[in-house]
């Protein structure tokens, strides 16, 4: 397959030039490269050649990658209604320009004096998300919403000294898996039931399950199943009656039009940054944020880096650094708060660029458009015989459960038919929520045109 010249230096490895290699060996007083590995016992030396294909020169590699990736059908090739934790949104070109800048792309963990720009953009990201959620502290982000929720729960547990957290039964099963593993063994997760008609939290059940052992009540707005939780104040009040911490997970694309959870009492707000100018990347675009009030008890429980601003020795300069670095596992190993390492800073930078571009009006328009288009989709789908898109009675944001039970077809069958017509139908809920029977979670965002929605409706009608 390869046709590259094997005997010349590899373009990625300058010191494979024999003369240079030999000069260096001589300089350090070694006879051979093998000698450098003499500390490794012979029995551990791998003596075969690894079964990995021969090197491809750049052009051959690019042909190979192109051919391989062309086996994928992307959401750009079809109309997709997939959401459920990773969503198709408008990504301004400026976002991609910034995050592909060689400087940002290849920087890592340098200090303020080499990477001032990186510190500033991350501080700005923190500050921009802070406005969106209306809170004063935001972290350098973690892996994804799930991790942010899990860490929020652990923070609450440390603050309260309690070992149980309540979560809604309508939570994304995938997200739940992550939280569960992250909280085990020491924190117990307990489901709070939902109202069958609306999907909303069953407040009676919540009341039943609240106790002095409960560190936190966690819920999401909008929920995984798309409906908006409207009893937010009530949930928070119930939690506070038991001195539990209220944690709310949010989709930030709703925050131009919806009150931020801080306004209905949330102590910790977490969520997903991916809607903010980040491509889905088959899930690789996820990034999670956590926000709190500016109180020591919260700040000192963050495991994440928190960049703060400070004067330098020259007037007028903004310098930056780590606030309470001693919190972190970097400083304290197992005595630090959870752990921190490489997370998803590039998505933080990107989300910052996005929010700076959108401004308050953009975010408001975004939320409005999503509301309008998703309502239109529900309205049109509801007209189809056997299909109910308004399965949950209430208000949705961006996503909604479409009930196919009346069609006599499984979601799997429906989706296969749709795929033939160039449409990716919604996420099959029949395994995740068997109680819903044959139902699917559909996602409509600002990227869907009326024509796209109409095409879906037509395709479903003709099934």
């Amino acid at each position: 397959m390869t046709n590259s010249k094997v005997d010349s230096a590899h373009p990625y490895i300058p010191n494979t030039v024999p003369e240079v290699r030999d000069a260096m060996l001589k300089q350090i007083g070694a006879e051979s490269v093998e000698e450098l590995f003499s500390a490794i016992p012979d029995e551990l030396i791998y003596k075969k050649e690894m079964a990995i294909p021969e090197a491809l020169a750049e052009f051959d590699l690019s042909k190979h990658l192109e051919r391989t990736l062309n086996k994928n059908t992307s959401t750009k090739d079809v109309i997709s209604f997939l959401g459920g934790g990773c969503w198709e949104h408008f990504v301004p070109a400026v976002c991609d320009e910034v995050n592909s800048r060689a400087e940002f792309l290849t920087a890592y963990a340098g200090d303020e004096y080499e990477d001032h720009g990186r510190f500033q953009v991350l501080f700005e990201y923190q500050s921009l998300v802070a406005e969106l959620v209306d809170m004063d502290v935001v972290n350098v982000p973690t892996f994804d919403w799930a991790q942010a929720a899990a860490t929020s729960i652990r923070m609450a547990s440390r603050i309260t000294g309690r070992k149980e957290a309540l979560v809604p039964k309508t939570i994304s099963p995938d997200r739940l898996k992550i939280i569960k593993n992250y909280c085990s063994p020491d924190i117990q997760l307990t489901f709070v039931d939902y109202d069958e008609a609306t999907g909303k939290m069953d407040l009676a059940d919540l009341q039943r399950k609240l106790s002095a052992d409960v560190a936190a009540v966690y819920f999401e707005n909008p929920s995984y199943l798309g409906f908006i939780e409207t009893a937010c104040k009530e949930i928070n009040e119930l939690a506070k009656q038991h001195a539990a911490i209220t944690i709310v997970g949010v989709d930030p694309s709703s925050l131009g039009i919806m009150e931020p959870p801080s306004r209905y009492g949330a102590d910790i707000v977490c969520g997903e940054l991916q809607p903010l100018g980040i491509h889905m990347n088959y899930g690789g675009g996820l990034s999670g944020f956590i926000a709190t009030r500016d109180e020591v008890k919260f700040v000192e429980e963050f495991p994440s880096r928190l960049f703060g601003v400070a004067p330098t020795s020259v007037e007028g300069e903004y310098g930056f650094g780590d606030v309470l670095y001693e919190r972190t596992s970097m400083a304290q190993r197992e005595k630090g708060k959870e752990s921190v390492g490489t997370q998803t800073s590039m998505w933080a930078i990107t989300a910052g660029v996005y929010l700076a571009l959108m401004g308050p009006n953009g975010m408001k328009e975004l939320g409005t458009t999503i509301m309008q288009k998703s309502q239109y989709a529900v309205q049109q789908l509801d007209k189809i015989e056997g299909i109910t898109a308004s399965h949950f009675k209430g208000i949705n944001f961006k996503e909604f459960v479409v009930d196919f039970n009346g069609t006599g077809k499984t979601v799997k069958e429906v989706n296969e038919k749709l795929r033939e017509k160039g449409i990716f139908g919604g996420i099959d809920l029949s395994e995740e929520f068997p109680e819903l029977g044959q139902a699917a979670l559909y996602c409509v965002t600002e990227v869907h045109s009326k024509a796209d929605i109409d095409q879906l409706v037509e395709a479903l009608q003709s099934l």
Partner: protein
Amino acid sequence: MKGIIRNQKVRNFHQAKWDEPIIFELHQEGERGVIPPHAEQDITESVGDGVSVLPEALQRKADPKLPEISQNRVLRHYLRLSQETLGAAFNVEIGQGTCTMKYSPKINEVYAASPKVTALHPKQDDATVQGMLEVIHNLDLYMREISGMDYFSFQPGSGTQSLFAMASIVRAYHEANGEADQRDEIITTIFSHPSQAATAAVKGYKIITLYPDEDGFPDIDKLKAAVSERTAGFVVANPEDTGIYNAKIKEFTKIVHDAGGICYYDQANANGLLGITRAKEAGFDMCFFNLHKTFSTPHACGGPAAGALGVTDQLKPFLPGPIVEKDGDTYTLNDDLEHSIGKVRSYHGVPQNILRAYAWIRALGAKGLKQVAETAVLNNNYLYHEILKIKGAGAPYIKGKRLEQVRYSWEKLYQDTGVTTEDISRRMADFGHQYWTSHHPFVVPQPFTLEPTESYSKTDLDEYIASLTHIANEAYTDPEKVKSAPYNSSIHAVVDQSPFEDPNKWAVTWRAYLKKTKASN
């Protein structure tokens, strides 16, 4: 004509300095950076404004105080700040030891940015992502060759998350054996990455930390003393960031196995080992690689990254799901793992990095991978050899060759001059270099950790060495010069660190800064 004489050994450098305001200061009411799509008129006519259906209490009252800025100005701001960031593509990036800052080939970026990757939804039907699954599966096969492990998951989003996943597997394994309560200790070493201890602690483990013997090896006698029926696992890197390879590693894993523990290998950085030696033969049950280190995916200011988590057949049922399997010519996702720990990162990890790592391996082949290791180790030993010649510099522990990196010490220089490793760090910025001290605790006093990888030429290494030499000389002749650095950076020294410690001063956001400074301004 007289030629232009260039005989300075250190670079006449100045970083871009733009003195940009904080982005909120660019606000001009009414400006717009971008206009998102709006609903068509037909839709508005059908459904109305869309938002008044929200209960009053949930309708946002006060607009978020985001700045309003034209597109050109937003872009200009970020472009300027990018120039103030010393990315690996710009410097002889050997100063961030342990981080394996190697060349990230540009061809890989082209495909990572393809809509055939970026515009995939993680819940698409398997049939529509066969290309991506093929890449994942093939990378799994290559990783098996590199490690000797039997199966890989690429779900972890970083090294730390890989370590956490492994600690989770250790727990699930002992749970499956009914020993979870009894086995509550994980053993690690003081030179290991802090995340080893930290992630094990998150999983509820007590941490036992082994200190090095006088040669810098983890002490085998201490390990023997540490293991017991309470031992759940043992996690270690080899070499650690000292670059010292522990030749007794097989004995170590045997001791732990004999005590009933699981051995897991931190191979975040395996850059000196590719094709040289493997996790399997050293007796490990699990290992992970950071794709953003050894396998060249760019560090992206700190992620998204990716960890490749490999296990032996015995531990495969414990992996987070789904994993990719090949069935004839078809690739499928299997989420049916008997003892799965569940998930650690949503969906499939960071697929764009899986693709990049795959591309990198394909550009090198088995031979090239081995050349990577050999050259990284050669470069490191050359650097080591030359740095030991610098007045005031040293490298504690055993003499002789090291593998891919070294934790050095300026202890002598500090004793002689009062100049610290942090002072030198700031001064290195003046010559366009990254420079890192080391992980805490500073077991090695006044430490600095360098890792040259395979990506740098002898000339590059010589420049870095010359800069360190220059600064060491300065420390001996004009220590204040070093202490007051930097001079040629985008920024000057933050002398008063209290805004990072004092709750009345710290400001993690611009709004907090405005509140806290309002009184005095």
